[in-house]
């Protein structure tokens, strides 16, 4: 049970890191577009970034729940 819990936590952490990399790229691309005068990318950028943050938050809560279960 404890080993399975650790594997789940590690998997969730890897997913969070991947989502974060995508989010960092998204922010830099949106900022680049904005500074170039193209403001159309701001709305989809904010929506997708919010979805990615929600996914990260969900994974964090998952990690917390698994962590408290395996302790």
């Amino acid at each position: 049970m404890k080993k399975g819990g650790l594997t789940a936590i590690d998997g969730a952490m890897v997913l969070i890191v991947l989502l974060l990399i995508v989010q960092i790229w998204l922010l830099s691309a949106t900022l680049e577009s904005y500074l170039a005068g193209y403001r159309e990318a701001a709305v989809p950028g904010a929506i997708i970034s919010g979805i990615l943050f929600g996914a990260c938050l969900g994974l964090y809560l998952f990690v917390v729940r698994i962590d408290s279960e395996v302790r």
Partner: protein
Amino acid sequence: MKWFRKPSSAPLWQDEFPVYTADERYVSRRQFTKFLTLTSFAMFAGNLWILVRSLLHRAPSYPRQTVAVLDEIAIGGVKIFTYPTPGDPCILVRTASDSYVAYSQKCTHLSCAVYYEKEQNRLECPCHQGFFSIADGSVLQGPPQRPLPRVALENIGGHLVAVRMEGEGV
């Protein structure tokens, strides 16, 4: 809140300032995941900031400014002027007897001053060999990713008047 409660009953300061050095360097998976999630929130906040700035953006107003008199410069000649503020250098090029173009003189890569290369009929940035088309300011070669902002000109009574900037970023 249940999700953010510490797993142990020890007070927070004992975790933040432990007795042993090894404990101070120890980062649990939970702490690391929380750090990543907060970083994700920071990225989201950055995107929101861009969104707010975009929604509050207003189209800038440009002054009308006489930059040259017709026939003041020879064919293939240039004139340097500033527009719309004294801190924005621009370059006016007479490409033919009745054709004038003007662009911002700041390279869109790292803001070096571009100059007109008459033989190649293009604008060149000497810093990193960025070349721009004299026809529309588009990038021909080099590290710049964006075209040069163009100064819209009008011929009013024999005077070339700058009326606005086109393709200018924020």
